């Protein structure tokens, strides 16, 4: 049992209860005991001065790759969960493209236990949609959910067979979990290494057209419409995708969507010089797409922000562009990137940012947290939205160093991360 925690004088931002006011927050026995105003803590309470800081419900990232089991050389559940709390995240959902694939109750349970043993962020496993992510046979959703899975996805590989995706959307309804789809028409994207456009034409790299994503986005929306199931679309990267999701929501389809911090901050120009730390799938797109994604996030078409945290070994990225793997790490830069590109530029207010990084991820994935209401779990992120800092990949808690933001100055950084009433990260010691 940890001592009661009293966070004093912070700006309490909790969109789940429409709260944005300076006040205190008291955490006792892993629960929010009191919020707002001046609180006289119980004897023996540890006090943390939060003056000048935002005190928010713990940030949740529903799209990370923790690489365990299989690639413990590039990340483990423990190092990933450590990186998460360093970046201000109190919970992450781990994608199932591990080796072996997390497509059964045993592996789901293993990932969950590794998360608990690490004692940093809460780790919620995904289960695969299909056995081995092969797109052929549905994995056992019921057993995986019983073992702790919060959603199913074959992320990295779209479920190309529309019948299988349809049945997944139907079958998942029994368990109340979203089906999470990586939207990509493989035949169109085949061999592509970056966005198809001016930069790819110049660099002589095979491009991935925006339509490779958009065609699958509309397929997913229509299958959700057909089945009444909940489809959650991974890492949207194009204006067309935003328009299609907007249409789907207007039709009343149960479609939710996410966007990565890198897709709202960088364009395909970042690939110049064959920078493999700007290589990811979906690829960085045009300024027009970035603007549409920002607007989609602002108007609610896109529900939430994620990182798609994807650690790779240094050697794997240190090579010819076409042969380098996709993905970048994001857990320790996302908050800064989001504040710098969304809040500082007037696209989102701080409460809106907290909503899209905490409340909505919890709501869409039916996770605990996302609120500081009395009685809810005491997962809290304290961050300084004005603190400027220089990204130093060598200082990451993640084993991954593959970031396009290295050396850049960002504004906004988590100063204290609390999971279950326990301080698991404190920036200033």
């Amino acid at each position, binding site marked *: 049992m940890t001592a009661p925690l009293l966070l004093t004088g912070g700006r309490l931002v909790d969109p789940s209860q429409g709260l944005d006011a300076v006040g205190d927050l008291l955490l006792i026995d892993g629960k929010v005991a009191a919020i707002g105003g001046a609180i006289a803590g119980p004897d023996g309470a540890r006090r943390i001065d939060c003056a000048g800081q935002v005190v928010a419900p713990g940030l949740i990232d529903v799209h990370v790759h923790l690489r365990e089991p299989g690639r413990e050389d590039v990340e483990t559940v423990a190092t990933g969960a450590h990186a998460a709390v360093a970046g201000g995240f109190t919970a992450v959902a781990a994608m199932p493209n591990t080796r072996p694939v997390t497509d059964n109750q045993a592996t789901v349970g293993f990932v969950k236990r590794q998360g608990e043993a690490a004692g940093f962020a809460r780790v919620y496993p995904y289960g695969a949609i299909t056995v081995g992510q092969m797109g052929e046979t549905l994995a056992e959703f019921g057993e995986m959910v019983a073992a702790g899975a919060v959603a199913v996805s074959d992320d990295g590989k779209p479920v190309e067979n529309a019948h299988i995706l349809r049945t997944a959307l139907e079958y998942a309804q029994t368990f109340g979990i979203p089906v999470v789809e990586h939207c990509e028409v493989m035949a169109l994207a085949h061999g592509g290494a970056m966005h198809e456009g001016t930069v790819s*034409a*110049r660099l*002589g*790299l095979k491009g991935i*057209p925006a339509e490779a994503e958009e065609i699958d986005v509309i397929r997913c929306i229509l299958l959700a419409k057909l089945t009444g199931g909940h489809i959650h679309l991974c890492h949207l990267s194009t204006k067309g995708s935003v328009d299609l999701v907007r249409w789907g929501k207007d039709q009343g389809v149960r479609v939710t969507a996410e966007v990565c911090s890198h897709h709202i901050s960088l364009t395909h120009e970042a690939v110049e010089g*064959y920078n493999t730390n700007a290589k990811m799938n979906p690829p960085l797109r045009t300024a027009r797409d970035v603007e549409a994604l920002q607007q989609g996030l602002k108007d609610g078409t896109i529900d939430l922000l994620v990182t798609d945290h994807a650690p790779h070994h240094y050697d794997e990225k240190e*090579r*010819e562009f076409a042969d380098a793997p996709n993905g970048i790490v994001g857990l320790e830069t996302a908050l800064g990137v989001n504040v710098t590109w969304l809040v500082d530029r007037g696209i989102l207010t701080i409460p809106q940012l907290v909503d899209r990084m905490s409340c909505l991820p919890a709501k869409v994935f039916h996770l605990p947290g996302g609120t500081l209401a009395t009685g809810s779990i005491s997962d809290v992120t304290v961050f300084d939205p004005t603190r400027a800092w220089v990204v130093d990949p060598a200082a990451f808690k993640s084993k991954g160093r593959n970031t396009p933001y290295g050396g850049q100055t960002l504004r906004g950084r988590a100063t204290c991360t609390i999971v279950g009433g326990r301080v698991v990260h404190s920036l200033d010691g």
Partner: protein
Amino acid sequence: MSLLGKDLIGIEGLTREQITTILDVADPLKAISERAIKKVPTLRGMTVVNLFFEASTRTRISFEFAEKRMSADTVNVATAVSSVSKGETLVDTARNLEAMKIDMVVIRHPASGAPRFLADRIESNVINAGDGTHEHPTQGLLDLLTLRSHLGSLEGKRICICGDVLHSRVARSNIWGLKALGAQVAVCGPRSLLPGAITDLGVEVFGRIEEAIQWADALNVLRLQLERMERGYIPSLREYNRVFGLTRARLERAPKDLVILHPGPMNRGVEIDSDVADGPHSVILEQVTNGVAVRMAVLYLLAGNAPALADAAKAESA
């Protein structure tokens, strides 16, 4: 540091002055290859590694002649015999070579950007001898040298690049070089073999070879990789020739005499018919001759020599 910088990775980014200097240096160097003793001591003591990760005959031989005629010591490394096939990375291969104290690397690689990657990581000068579908700068330069000798100044001249622009590093190098020298540039080919964003590169697009022939002063006909048909870009080589092939019948309808270039190797009867390739307007073999001179000029300049000394270098052979 030479006037070109440390490396020659692409023509994109080179100034008109830099390109003109290379061509001006190359012109007199042509004479060296005409002499009984085809050798000058300019690069004596320098070691050049020709690092070829992709099959090449003419480019590799052309570089090797250029190096030898400048008295450099050369080593050829080809993929089949290198340790790359044993899983060594590109950067390890290069660092091992450099540990043996070399001065320059000429690299041909199937991945776009590989020469840039290498150049950023080693001290030696790096010359791109063709990378993926990105650039082939010495080919672009030799095309410019050839065009200049036939058309004079390229300012305002109309050059059309015909064929598989999508997969062509030669096309990209030509586009940048020609535009830097003030030429008007067009591309012509089936839309499936042109990049979607091609007009962003500042070129005109012709859908029919007949239109290109009416418009142009010169045509640079690209090699059609035979695998394009298998990958679904075009239905058949036969139809390609019938619709897009440069035939004598089509050329006879040109309003003026066109200069015909081809980077080789040619698929006779596909993108170009033999009677055109071997005809009076073809400068294809002259391109090959100019290739040695252009590569000598690039080696000479990257080694840090002043452009004005090129004439002196030539004189040494006299």
